[in-house]
């Protein structure tokens, strides 16, 4: 069983990349860790939170990524090594601070881990975070294996102190969310003493000093390059003078090694794996470049390494040129995640060899079978999800209102309000809190003849993360909108982490909750509260608030996430069907229960032509009882 707090040097554990990063931070003697949850980065801080008490750490789920990084920087200013972790979208939130922090530098090791999500597996975008390191002249490390994730995270603190600045570590889904062998190192024995030295010059960059600090950053880059020349995180496998040199980083290492092996090209293709990708170690790279005529660059998302290698090669005064293959040449996809198969085909194409993964006959058979027998599994709200009932109420309220009102949203489980189980109500999804900001703008368009009601939705965690400034803005501008806060008592999408509205912190200790209703009242906005499971009351309140137009209004729909509740208590009701009352397709309601409401606990029985309950799935919320016009669904209190 994996245990990242084990003081067992030289033993191996099967660690997730994120756990390995957390372990590396522990081996570096980290004292403070902060993050806002977001996949694929969430387990880094979650893992540290679990061992916080045992190892005397301070670990926090911060209100957003900027505050998380500021908390970590605060610790560093007081002499404590600190780590902040976030996903790629989160880096944008933290960027304003980071783009000033780089100028002032830090005294104690400060590591910022960003987990990118190629393919947007659990994200709204697939932004490449590495550009930030180049733009801000900060060091960039990219782990390629689970062991390296641990070792590199540890070393990142040393590098940070060596250059007296924050160090960026970029992971990707296939490292962060995969597991592999990790051999542990020693855990240090530390007596951390925090103190801010008030006698030193301030950590501050102002107008007059910015260029000077900027210049110092550039001098730092040359030092980093020199350090990187000897880094054990850069290595080469292959023949002395390969026909083709693959240069890769991150998840590309495993895939490239596999592809070369599958094509049996170990004797003609070399792989230069780089772990230090900004600034580049020029001497090391030029040594390998001089041994080959062709370079193939394998990396996830943007052509960051590829472009920088081309730039570097233009500066090499060797009189040689190279043929580059990669994203620009069309051999590697510049979007989506890369897989071993993409690389196999890229190498096969460059070396002009044939590769088929399976016989033509087998391939044909498998395609036919997939087409005939495989059904898609669409996104849907879970059984008993309070968001389904809130979106149901919003759909009904907007239809009854009849003025083509619509919903603007943002990121969370409730983004599924875009899809059929949210009755396709959401019309915009961008950044955290963007629905509220967009509503603030839409709500001021009446002078241009705009008269559609605007509903903004946000979750409770998002409310704290980014909605509050936009709400204050909209209250001050008296925009015309209704904000619906989908309060399910936790950061559900990323694994139920606590937030400032919950009564517990990351380390499991009691914390005073900030009350959203009272906060709204204090801001001077009209606010109402409803139970998301009470469809009638919620619909009525929505209708009333929609009619009370011309100013900001807030409706808080409370109901704990059905998955969290199921962990703590038995279902509220046992929901059953009276088959004598269910009249199936003859009902005339478009089969609200299954076709429209789409709760996975309700199943349409094709044989009996009646609805039935899937008792293994039904969460016992009892809401569907209110949906059925024939009273064929009934509920019994779960005693």
């Amino acid at each position, binding site marked *: 069983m994996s245990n990242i707090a084990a003081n067992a040097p030289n033993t191996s554990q*099967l660690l997730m990349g994120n756990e390995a990063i957390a372990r590396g931070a522990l081996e570096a003697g980290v004292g403070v860790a902060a993050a806002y949850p977001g996949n694929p980065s969430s387990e880094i801080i979650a893992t540290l939170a679990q061992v916080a008490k045992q190892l005397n750490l301070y670990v926090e789920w911060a209100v957003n990524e900027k505050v998380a990084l500021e908390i970590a920087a605060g610790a560093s200013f007081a002499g404590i090594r600190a780590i902040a972790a976030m996903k790629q979208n989160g880096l944008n939130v933290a960027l304003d601070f980071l783009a000033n922090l780089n100028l002032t530098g830090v005294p104690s090791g400060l590591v910022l881990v960003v987990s990118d999500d190629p393919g947007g597996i659990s994200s709204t975008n697939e932004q490449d975070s590495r550009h930030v390191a180049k733009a801000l002249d900060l060091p960039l490390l990219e782990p390629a294996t689970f062991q390296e994730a641990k070792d590199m995270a540890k070393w990142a603190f040393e590098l940070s102190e060596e250059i007296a600045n924050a160090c960026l570590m970029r992971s990707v889904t296939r490292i962060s969310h995969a597991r592999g062998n990790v051999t542990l190192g020693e855990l240090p024995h530390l007596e951390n003493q925090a103190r801010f030295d008030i006698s030193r010059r301030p950590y501050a960059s102002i107008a007059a000093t910015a260029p000077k600090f900027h210049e110092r950053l550039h001098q730092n880059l040359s030092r980093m390059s020199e350090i990187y020349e000897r880094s054990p995180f850069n290595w080469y496998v292959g023949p002395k003078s390969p026909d083709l040199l693959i240069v890769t980083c991150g998840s590309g290492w495993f895939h490239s090694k596999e592809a070369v092996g599958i094509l049996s090209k170990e004797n003609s293709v070399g792989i230069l794996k780089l772990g230090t990708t900004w600034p580049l170690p020029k001497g090391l790279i030029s040594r390998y470049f001089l041994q080959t005529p062709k370079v193939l660059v394998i990396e996830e998302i943007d052509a960051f390494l590829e472009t920088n290698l081309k730039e570097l090669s233009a500066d090499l005064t060797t009189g040689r040129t190279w043929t580059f293959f990669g994203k620009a040449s069309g051999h590697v996809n510049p979007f989506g995640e890369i897989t*071993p198969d993409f690389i196999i085909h890229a190498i096969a194409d460059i070396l002009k060899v044939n590769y088929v993964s399976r016989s033509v006959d*087998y391939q044909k058979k498998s395609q036919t*079978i997939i087409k005939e027998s495989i*059904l898609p*599994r*669409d996104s*849907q709200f879970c059984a008993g999800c309070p968001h389904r009932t809130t979106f149901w109420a919003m759909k009904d309220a907007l239809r009854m209102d009849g003025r083509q009102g619509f919903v603007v949203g943002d990121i969370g489980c409730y983004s599924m309000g875009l899809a059929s189980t949210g009755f396709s109500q959401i019309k915009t999804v961008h950044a955290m809190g963007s629905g509220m900001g967009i509503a603030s703008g839409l709500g001021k368009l009446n002078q241009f003849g705009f008269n559609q009601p605007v509903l903004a939705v946000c979750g409770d965690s998002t409310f704290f993360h980014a909605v509050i400034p936009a709400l204050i803005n909209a209250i001050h501008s008296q925009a015309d909108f209704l904000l619906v806060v989908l309060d399910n008592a936790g950061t559900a999408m990323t694994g139920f982490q606590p937030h400032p509205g919950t009564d517990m912190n990351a380390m499991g200790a009691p914390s005073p909750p900030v009350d959203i209703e009272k906060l709204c009242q204090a801001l001077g906005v009209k606010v109402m509260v409803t139970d998301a499971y009470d469809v009638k009351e919620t619909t009525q309140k929505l209708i009333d608030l929609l009619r009370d137009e011309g100013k900001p209004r807030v409706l808080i729909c409370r109901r704990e996430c059905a998955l969290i509740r199921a962990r703590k208590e038995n279902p509220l009701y046992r929901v059953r069907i009276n088959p004598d009352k269910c009249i199936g397709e003859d009902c005339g309601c478009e089969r609200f229960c299954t076709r429209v409401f789409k709760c996975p606990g309700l199943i349409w029985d094709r044989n009996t032509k009646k609805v039935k309950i899937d008792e293994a799935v039904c969460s016992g919320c009892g809401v569907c009882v209110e949906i059925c016009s024939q009273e064929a669904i009934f509920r019994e209190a779960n005693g």
Partner: protein
Amino acid sequence: MSQGRKDPLNLIITGVGGQGNILISKLIGEAMLEEGYWVTIGETYGASQRGGSVASHLRISRKTQHGPLTPEGQADIILGLEPVESLRMLGVYGNPTSDVITNIRPIHPMAVAIGEAEYPSLDRIKQGIRELSHEAWYLDASEIAIGLGAPLLTNMVMAGALIGSGLMPVGEEKFERQLKANFEKERLSLNLKAFGLGVSTIRKGKRASHN
């Protein structure tokens, strides 16, 4: 025992979100790690994570650490907690030497639950598996788990079926040791029982050999 010596050994454990395939991959992975193997576990998802397809890729080697994604057509064993998911993975990662062990109890996708699509018959699924695999085992692991009073134990029954099949280079006692290290006392005996029933069921059962 045909797959035991292949390196890397590529095992895909597939199912629907919530079935617990990630937990059993971790337990199997840790059992292999203790035997001195390099173990990599990756996950692939379908279009959705809530109620969607989830597959764990286990890649086991004596020589080196492998990447978390199995290349197309390179699966040696597919362990399916849900029949359509077994076929879905076989379609992408299977080859004529792949072995399949699958639970036969369907979990209906939304389109089926709301009456807009039909779930393929078990005969059709079996025929698809027959055409794309080397050998296949079928069991109603859900029924066995329900018999124990907890449908959530389906994953443990399937883990028993995998280890009991002899396809993996690891024995029952090694897996049981992982269960003992990972479960609290109250839950341990039921999990061990489910695992044991998986082992005995697969050993009694007839494998469907096609070639």
